[in-house]
């Protein structure tokens, strides 16, 4: 019964979120100074007024906004997500193509920041107050305050331009046929954007893990473990990870929204053909169907992340004192 109620509530929350996100995105685009027509044909076009009229009618832009929105919503619910003005392809196709790039990128950044951040947090807690701790703390705070696009530009100019270790952009080598592109090509092109994107999360997860583990280290059972002859390394392996890993993973899931916010910037800097750069293009081109499609998809993604965090949290922090395992 309680589970039914929880599921019902969750579905309701998800639907209202989707509706709110699509209305808000639509309103913002309506209010934006970007004129899709100008963006499409350019400012110095020689198109006749009749031809322009024809294009507007084709896009449905001659109708009032409210009507247009409901038309879009009706079609969206029935599986027709519309045609992207920018890419001249169905929105669904564009998103599907680009989502796999972005998912790979986000997954890489997410796991990299999680693993590295967690390890740094544990190390800082163990060395609390000493030089290592201070360095890690400073590093994390610096990372957290640095804007993603700036880190992106910096790593681009250092690793790609000056050192030449990594490609400057794109998801595959230029001029290579799509069927010839190998997995290692893809990974090679993903390293810098993934690193840039992960920077966003490292600081947060490291500082959280540090705080949590320091808390644990002050608990009585750590004192007892010491009294039983466990070394610091053994304490970390036996009690530290056991008591901090799942809370850290939960926090990491809750950071999905920041990750999605980050890809728009990281992908633009590296011309990486994912959802993020499509989003930028859609915004600049007044491409309403594509932008709304991406908005709803990202809302779903962030919602899934937060839901996972919630469920993990409930499973791990039982209120009745009995642990479910």
């Amino acid at each position, binding site marked *: 019964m309680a589970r039914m109620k929880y599921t019902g509530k969750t579905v309701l929350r998800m639907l209202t979120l989707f509706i709110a996100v699509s209305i808000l995105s639509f309103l913002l685009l309506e209010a934006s100074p970007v004129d899709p027509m100008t963006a499409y044909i350019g400012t110095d076009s020689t198109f006749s007024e009749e031809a322009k009229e024809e294009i507007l009618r084709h896009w449905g832009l001659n109708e009032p906004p409210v009507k247009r929105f409901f038309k879009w919503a009706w079609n969206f619910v029935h599986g027709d997500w519309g045609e992207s003005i920018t890419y001249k392809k169905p929105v669904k196709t564009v998103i599907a193509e680009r989502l796999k790039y972005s998912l790979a990128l986000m997954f890489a950044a997410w796991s990299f920041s999680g693993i590295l951040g967690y390890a740094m947090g544990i190390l800082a807690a163990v060395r609390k107050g000493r030089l290592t701790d201070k360095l890690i703390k400073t590093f994390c705070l610096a990372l957290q305050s640095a804007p993603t696009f700036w880190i992106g530009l910096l790593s681009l100019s250092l690793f790609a331009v000056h050192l030449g270790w990594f490609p400057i952009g794109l998801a595959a080598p230029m001029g290579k046929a799509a069927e010839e592109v190998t997995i290692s090509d893809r990974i090679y092109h993903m390293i810098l954007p993934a690193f840039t994107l992960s920077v966003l999360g490292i600081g947060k997860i490291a500082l959280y893990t540090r705080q949590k583990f320091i808390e644990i280290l002050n608990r009585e*059972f750590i004192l007892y473990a*010491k009294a*039983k*002859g466990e070394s610091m390394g053994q304490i970390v392996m036996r009690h530290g990870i*056991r008591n901090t890993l799942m809370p850290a993973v939960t926090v990491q899931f809750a950071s999905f929204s920041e990750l999605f916010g980050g890809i728009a910037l990281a992908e633009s800097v590296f011309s990486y053909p994912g959802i993020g750069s499509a989003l930028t293009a859609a915004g600049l081109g007044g491409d309403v169907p594509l932008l709304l499609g991406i908005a709803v998809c990202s809302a779903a993604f962030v919602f899934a992340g937060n839901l996972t965090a919630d469920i993990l949290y409930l499973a791990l922090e039982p209120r009745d004192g009995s642990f479910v395992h």
Partner: protein
Amino acid sequence: MGNKIVQEKENVPVLSVEELSVSFNMYQKGLRRENLEVLHKLSLSIHAGEILAVAGASGSGKSILAHAVLGILPGNASTRGRMLYKGQPLTEKEKRRLRGREIAFIPQSVDYLDPLMRVGRQVMGVRGTKERQRELFGKYGLEEGTEKKFPSMLSGGMARRVLIASALMEEASLIVADEPTPGLSKELAEETLQNFRELADAGCAVILITHDIDLAFRAADKIAVFYAGTIVEIAPAKDFRAGKEALRHPYSRAFLEALPQNEFRPLKGFQPYAGKLPKGCLFAERCSERSGMCMGEIPMRKVRGAEVRCVHAR
């Protein structure tokens, strides 16, 4: 010749603590640092086969003594004085080597177990074996499923037996038990004391830290009376059972009088706060026998076969 060495070895105390002082570095009001001494020139010794009860009021620093012996004091603590384990200096390095192996600690409660680790693995520790753990669980009447349980699923009595079993995982010569009986029923407390007796009879030296003097009477061979961070008297338990005339320190006598089964007469005043200790005898302020001599240095001295820290004791 060989016999003499054995003889001497038997007479060497398992642990002897000489003039141990422990102080904490603390920040008071902003950046003013204060060195707070919580144990003052404390001395005691214990032999194999003995149970020594360290008894005193709550908050008098008894647990600090236990932590100092095990080397698990917090980082801001500093110690002075000397500790010998079986005649050898017990340095911090030695403590690290010995704790868990030869020196075992029995903590107060189930809070000292990792809430997320199954009990069996915790009792095994880092060096123990499954066989030994099963054997000990059998010995202490912990049923088969217990090792798979998490600490929160244990009853008070089970937790107590689990903690004792942990101490015996390896060959301990010295066991330090910190308040092992509060919260236990009378039967369980009796059973726990019985367990300690068996351990001592098997050749362990057991230090029993407790605020329950009644318990100390029944279980211990010797009782050390703890007051304001030091030991004021160490006497055979039979002296305590015999009544206050057999005791030497005025605080020990007052302690005895305050018991419900005796006169139930409380002692006026409070223990001095560690930061504001009087000069000389720490008990002088509350003592009826106070005189000018109490203001000087009060050494531990032998009186009627026991040790006492009082210039008036006869």
